């Protein structure tokens, strides 16, 4: 491809202002000495100029207000969701802490009750205490889980109605 052909391919981009500084310089130098390319560049200029001046279609104020309202509702919903998640994490952490902390208390109290009935310590009694504690904890977690699921279902239903 000759230098002339290469420059000719750049003329549309030159009118679009899409050339590098080096390419622009190259085009400017060539156009000074080439009438054909100079005319071709002149033909591109009004097209580029009119494209820059095309009227901008504007969205209606109703559309902007509706978009803002929907986006704000989404933002609020997200903030609420984040807050719920943080609360849930804190509640679960607290529940575990309480479970771990209650073990020695539970063991101590049940041990005392146990010792009233059976003064001698036995591995069987320890095992029973542990099973009771595990059952008590599992029941607590199950109740908490069911409550959380019911709350989530209710919240989803309310959102749907809203």
């Amino acid at each position: 491809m000759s230098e002339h052909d290469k420059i000719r391919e750049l003329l549309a981009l030159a009118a679009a202002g899409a050339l590098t500084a080096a390419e622009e310089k190259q085009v400017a130098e060539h156009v000074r000495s080439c009438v054909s390319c100079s005319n071709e560049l002149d033909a591109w200029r009004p097209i580029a100029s009119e494209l820059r001046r095309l009227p901008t279609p504007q969205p209606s104020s109703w559309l902007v207000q509706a978009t803002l309202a929907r986006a704000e509702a989404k933002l609020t919903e997200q903030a609420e969701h984040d807050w719920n998640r943080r609360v849930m994490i804190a509640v679960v952490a607290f529940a575990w802490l309480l479970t771990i902390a209650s073990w020695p208390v539970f063991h101590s109290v049940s041990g005392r009750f146990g010792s009233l009935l059976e003064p001698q310590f036995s591995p069987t009694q320890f095992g029973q205490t542990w099973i009771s504690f595990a059952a008590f904890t599992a029941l607590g977690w199950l109740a908490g889980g069911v409550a959380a699921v019911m709350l989530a279902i209710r919240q989803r239903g309310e959102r749907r109605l809203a």
Partner: protein
Amino acid sequence: MDADADVVRLRRGDLNALSELITRYQNRLYRYLLRMVQQPAEAEDLFQQTWLRVVEKIRSFDASRNFDAWLFTLARNLAIDHLRRIRPQSLDEPLANSWHSETVADRIPCKDHTPLDHALAAERRTEISEAMAGLPMMYREVLTLRFEDEMKIEEIAQVTAVPVSTVKSRLRRSLEQLRYALEARYPGGTWQ
């Protein structure tokens, strides 16, 4: 306040920042979507979807990046998904029906001095709008981003997710097709 500051505030959940961003970008975004899908009702729906997507994804937005490019990329992805679903042929074929609708803003006189100048300029714009509407979606897109949004080639490359060289060749081809369409539609007119 600049867009970057509004973006930082929006990331913290500031509702006012959202309102300011929508106000700032409403015309450019709507125009871009309208040029892409060419149907006002579809552009309006995509406009809403784009802002909902912004709210959804704003936390994953890298603040060191260009917000304009990110916003237009979200809009572009939604528009392309929409076109792929509704009119898959429009992604690579020129549309048979050209879109052109005049708004109140279109009728506001610009810098032209005489009524004749104004009438001629309006006519040229109508011609160019109609010719542009007949181009394939990818060509309309690159033309609107370059000339109407005045994006740099690098920014267009970011939005369209293609290399700079591809943007340049797409821009050149779109201008050539536009000129060809103008010359074919209006033989002997001002475009030759």
